[in-house]
């Protein structure tokens, strides 16, 4: 009897505790535990989720998908436990927006976080088409990935500035995917030849990518009237000059897209002075023809730019020669940088399409270049004077040495050493 009592006291409590031992330990997520054991696509979320920004922020599967991560049975995924399952493509924006549109909730993780992604998305071409039932368009996960979402600042993220072009290009450069939308598919290829891509490749992550001009969540092609505004967000002076220029009203009237008209849109290459004027590379002749006012102004601006460059080159060459001759010409060289600045300002002023404004700068550049050139001429003249002086001095020195030599011969001719 005593043995039975001992058995009851020791074994029975253990038997009672047994089920609780089999349950997941506190904090253990049954979603991860079970999905990690599954095969193929079913196991992917569990395997990828470790690096996900949501997981890093302490969220679990159930925060998006609902259900009960504490229950290791299939009941965990029952509607009764709040399980929402995986959203369809059409449901995705709202699915993510449950949290991302809740500013109070989002600020718990990052006080600077925006919560207008959904409202922006709904204004985008992507959002509008999705609402119409087009599931080929991009929704949240198409750009941000899913279950391994990284912050945009992470260089591995598909929306990091260095990866944006490839991410957009996955659809926009795929002719088969874009069939039926009636838009070109060479944007990525063209962008990669642009000065913007070159800047980005050099490590400048502030260089514009697709989303800088088109927006990200509210992605939309800029309208003809707003192109100058978009370029002007970075190229402020150019946009201001264009706004005040005679081109602004004419372009608007003719339905021409501002900056893009001369600089192209995606393949924006480094501009050259040859674009201004009436030569074979000039963009002005696309609209202006011989005799019209714009044609004359273009010729004048090209001539002024060429003039200041000629004077600058001449001054640089002569100062270089003087410097290589050992002359101290650092002051005129410093002054010449002002002429360079005047040339840069003149190039900027071209966007006013006002030849008088351009000439103000080029005249200044020419004047400074001429002064620097004169300083170079003076330095070379000084060099020649020095060399002539040296020649004369050497003649006197040779004469003195000859005289001394003669004197020694004279002294020593009579004596025996």
């Amino acid at each position, binding site marked *: 009897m005593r043995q039975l009592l001992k058995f009851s006291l020791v074994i029975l409590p253990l038997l009672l505790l047994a089920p609780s031992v089999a349950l997941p330990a506190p904090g253990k997520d049954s979603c991860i535990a079970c999905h990690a054991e599954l095969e193929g696509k079913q196991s992917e979320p569990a395997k990828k989720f470790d690096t996900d920004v949501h997981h890093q922020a302490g969220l679990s599967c159930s925060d998006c998908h609902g259900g009960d991560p504490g229950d290791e049975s299939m009941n965990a995924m029952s509607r009764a436990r709040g399980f929402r399952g995986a959203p369809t493509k059409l449901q995705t924006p709202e699915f993510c927006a449950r949290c991302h549109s809740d500013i109070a909730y989002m600020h718990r993780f990052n006080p600077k976080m925006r919560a207008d992604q959904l409202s922006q998305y709904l204004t985008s071409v992507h959002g509008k088409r999705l609402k119409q039932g087009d599931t080929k368009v991009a929704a949240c996960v198409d750009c941000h990935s899913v279950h391994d979402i990284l912050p945009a600042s992470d260089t591995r993220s598909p929306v990091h500035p260095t990866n944006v072009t490839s991410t957009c290009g996955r659809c926009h450069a795929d002719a088969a995917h874009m069939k039926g939308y009636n838009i070109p598919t060479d944007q990525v290829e063209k962008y990669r030849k642009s000065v913007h891509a070159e800047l980005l490749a050099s490590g400048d992550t502030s260089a514009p990518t697709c989303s800088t001009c088109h927006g990200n969540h509210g992605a939309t092609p800029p309208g003809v009237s707003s192109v100058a505004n978009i370029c002007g967000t970075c190229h402020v002076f150019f946009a201001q000059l264009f706004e005040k220029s005679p081109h602004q009203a004419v372009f608007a009237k003719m339905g021409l897209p501002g900056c893009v008209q001369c600089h192209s849109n995606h393949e924006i290459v480094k501009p050259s002075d040859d674009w201004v004027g009436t030569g074979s590379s000039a963009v002005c002749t696309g609209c202006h023809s011989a005799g019209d006012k714009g044609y004359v102004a273009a010729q004048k601006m090209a001539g002024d730019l060429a003039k200041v460059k000629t004077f600058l080159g001449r001054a640089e060459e002569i100062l270089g020669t003087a410097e290589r001759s*050992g*002359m101290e010409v*650092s002051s005129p060289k410093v002054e010449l940088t002002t002429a360079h600045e005047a040339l840069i300002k003149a190039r900027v002023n071209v966007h006013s399409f006002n030849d008088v404004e351009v000439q103000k700068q080029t005249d200044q550049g020419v004047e400074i270049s001429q002064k620097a050139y004169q300083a170079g001429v003076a330095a070379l003249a000084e060099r020649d004077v020095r*060399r002539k002086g040296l020649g004369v001095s050497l003649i006197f*020195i040779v004469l003195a040495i000859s005289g001394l030599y003669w004197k020694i011969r004279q002294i020593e001719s009579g004596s025996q050493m």
Partner: protein
Amino acid sequence: MKALIRPILNWLDERFGTGSVEEFLRHKTVPIHRHTVWYYFGGMTLFLFIVQVLTGILLLLYYRPTPEDAYESVQYIVTQVRFGWLIRSVHSWSANLMVLTAFIHMFSVYFLKAYRKPRELTWISGMFLLFVVMGFGFSGYLLPWNTLAFFATKVGTEMAGAVPFAGKWMLTFLRGGEEVTGATLTRFFGFHVAVLPGLATVLLAMHLLLVQQLGMSVPPSVERATAEGRQPPRVMPFFPNFLLRDIIGWYAALGVLGALAAIFPWELGAKADPFAAAPAGIRPEWYFLFMFQTLKLLPAKILFLEGELAGLAGFSLAGAVWVAVPFLDYRAGFGRVTRFFTGLGIFALGFIVVMSALALR
């Protein structure tokens, strides 16, 4: 002409007793042999030193030793002051030629064993003069306050900081603080125009006095040949024969200096920016290159010593041995030539040439 000078000399003799100097000069002679040519390098070094003093005084009229003004004042000298470019270039080229002729003079004295008894003090004063000349070069290099000079001084003074125990104090003493700043410039200016000229004057006076007192040394081989009757003793009067030859050399040096200044004016470079990164290829003046290259090639650790420290210790020891050569090679005083010291000289010369060439590659 003589009729005009004689009354003046007599007038001076009555007041200063210069007749004895005249008498000394009349009897002073210089030996003639196949090594006589080396005698001229001492006089040449003295001539270049005088050029340094004169051009240095002229530069002082415009130079301002502050970080704000130093570069600009040198720029002003070479661009605005009449013949300023000539004075500055001659000063810089003459400094380099003076170091070169001083080295030639030192090695010729070494190989001809002119340091032997009784000229030990002539050698020692000459060696200290050489150190002073190198000090002039090191301190003067910083004065234009350009980028190269600034960083070379930084590296150069860092070496002093590597010396155990006194290193930190030496570094602070040289720089006038932890870093190369305006305080360093003022300090180097002080060394360059006051301390070193003072030392040089005393040493030079001693050196020249000893040379006059003891006369020119005749190499042992010539002495032997004369003693054995193989070569008759030949001399020439110092005044005017040797002096006129000296003057020919000085005129030639003046021509070379003028040509260098006119064809290759000494560069000024860019103004020093203490906050900028050190430009590539920083190296000291050519006469410090052999030390610079040696320290660069040394391993990080030599036995228990740091490589750089071992190098500095080695150079200090070598310098001390070099100064003490007249006492170490005392046998030379008895006319016996020790091959070891001749070999040591060839090794030292070869080492300096090879290391400098390696650094210039």
